[in-house]
């Protein structure tokens, strides 16, 4: 792969994590390379979301280390993570429902102080999602499902992230919108020069746009391969048709 020689932007080593005393992830080791799209896949309850949340310090890490640009970010406070350029979009189109679209986006730039940067970022987000500019004075809850997801992603982009964590962005969207969404994710990677780590259940679409795929089963990494190799391999069928023991 073209990026395999580069240093990873995100490195997770021997991570054991979960919630309180319930351990979900077991000895997870992954590398994510700069300006790539990496898809996290796995059956329900595999710990995909937990892994994403662990990076954003929303779980209890039992042991192991998460490094970002060779700096340890394990247990780092949220506002520090944002300062380092990591943004997280939670599952389920989560927005500030009773705020307008534009206010939502501005909340994404909360830690930024420079007005020009904020304005530039807003213009870039509106370029990426023109529909948000059209609806900028409307309440977030009045948007359609697809628009709400765009708003959530737009808000994360306002922080000029170098690493964007997306949790199931296509959840509950129509096939046409899913296609659109994946085009946006491709765009975002190039236009915002960001690395994307995405949890997806739409395997085909996700793998077709991503550079790497990670298969997670029962909290353990079963495979981590370039997407083209993963599409051809048996592992996907084994995991998702259920013949995997």
């Amino acid at each position, binding site marked *: 792969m073209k990026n395999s020689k580069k240093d990873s932007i995100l490195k997770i080593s021997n991570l054991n994590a979960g919630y309180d005393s319930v351990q979900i992830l077991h000895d997870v080791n992954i590398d994510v390379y700069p300006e790539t799209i990496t898809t996290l896949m796995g059956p329900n309850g595999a710990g995909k979301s937990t892994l994403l949340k662990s990076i954003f310090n929303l779980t209890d890490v039992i042991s192991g280390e998460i490094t970002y640009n060779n700096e340890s970010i394990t247990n780092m406070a949220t506002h520090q993570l*944002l300062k380092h350029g990591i943004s*997280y979009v*939670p599952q389920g189109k989560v*927005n*500030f*429902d*009773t*705020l307008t679209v534009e*206010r939502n986006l*501005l909340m994404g730039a909360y830690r930024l102080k420079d007005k020009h940067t904020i304005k530039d970022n807003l213009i870039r987000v509106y370029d990426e999602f023109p529909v948000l500019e059209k609806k900028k004075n409307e309440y977030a809850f009045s948007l359609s499902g697809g628009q709400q997801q765009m708003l959530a992603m737009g808000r994360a982009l306002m922080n000029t992230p170098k690493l964007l964590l997306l949790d199931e962005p296509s959840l509950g969207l129509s096939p046409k919108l899913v296609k659109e969404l994946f085009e946006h994710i491709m765009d975002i990677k190039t236009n915002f020069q960001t690395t994307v780590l995405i949890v997806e259940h739409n395997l085909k679409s996700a793998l077709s746009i991503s550079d790497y795929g990670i298969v997670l089963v029962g909290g353990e990494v079963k495979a981590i391969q370039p997407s083209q190799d993963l599409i051809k391999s048996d592992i996907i069928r084994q995991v998702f048709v259920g013949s995997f023991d």
Partner: protein
Amino acid sequence: MTQGRISANSISVFANMNIFIQLLINGLIAGSIYALVASGFSLIYSTNRFMHFAHGGTITVSAYILLTFFKLAGLNFYLSAILTVISAGILGYLMHAVLYMPLRKRGSSGAILLIASVGLMILLENLMLMIYGADVKSLKFIKIAKGMEIWGAIITPLQLVIIISSVVLLIGMAFFVKKSKLGSTMRAVADNPELAEISGISTSKIQGMSFVIGSAIAGFAAILIGLEQNIEPTMGLSLIIKGFTGAIIGGVTSLPGSIVGSYLLGLVENFGIWYLPSGYKDAISFVLLFVFLLWRPTGIFGINKGIKK
């Protein structure tokens, strides 16, 4: 307040008009006070998501602080007033930092915080009773002035000051919440604390800020009330009940809503005594509260996002 000046044998159109205007003015005065109480209460409620009934206690304590600075320490009235507002803000922050935050860290639910706030309210009342005694105190800053006559209704200069300063402050507050960065951040925390947290907003800091601002408004209310009425340890209780009712009627999570609700409450209460003896004032406001709780719990301005809970 002067009201119910109805003489049985002079009911003419003019007399009715005069009564109407008098009740309107009385309603606006009461509404202004309720709105000051309700706006602070609703600001704290929306970011903290529990009923801070000790807000009434903040008013009582603030009134005594004003009394201490002005009468006991002999400071200039305006300086005392400014110090009162600042002290109220500090008191609010202390309640948040010393009582509510530690409870929250132990995972207390809204109900537990509510019980704690009622306890705090009783504590503050009794503290004032202990320090200052049970007898009624008064500031006596403004000499009893003869009321002005406006279209046959009587209003004192102080009452005019109450209405005008409240309206100015409340409009300012509404703009602050709607337009400023801190105001929008407060609305964001009120809307979705978890999302606010992952957007880099420290929710506990914003909750503390709400306590400071909300309590400072309570301090301002205490000054106006202290000028108009007597100061006594139990004064906060009835005020917080009215402020709470006003906030519920208007929609407790919406600041403009709780302001409108409070004025509506003040007006309904006062117009109600056109028909009923004035002793029924509180009954009228509670009937209004129940009507809203039963049929429109989100209040007039409450947004229910198209979902029925």
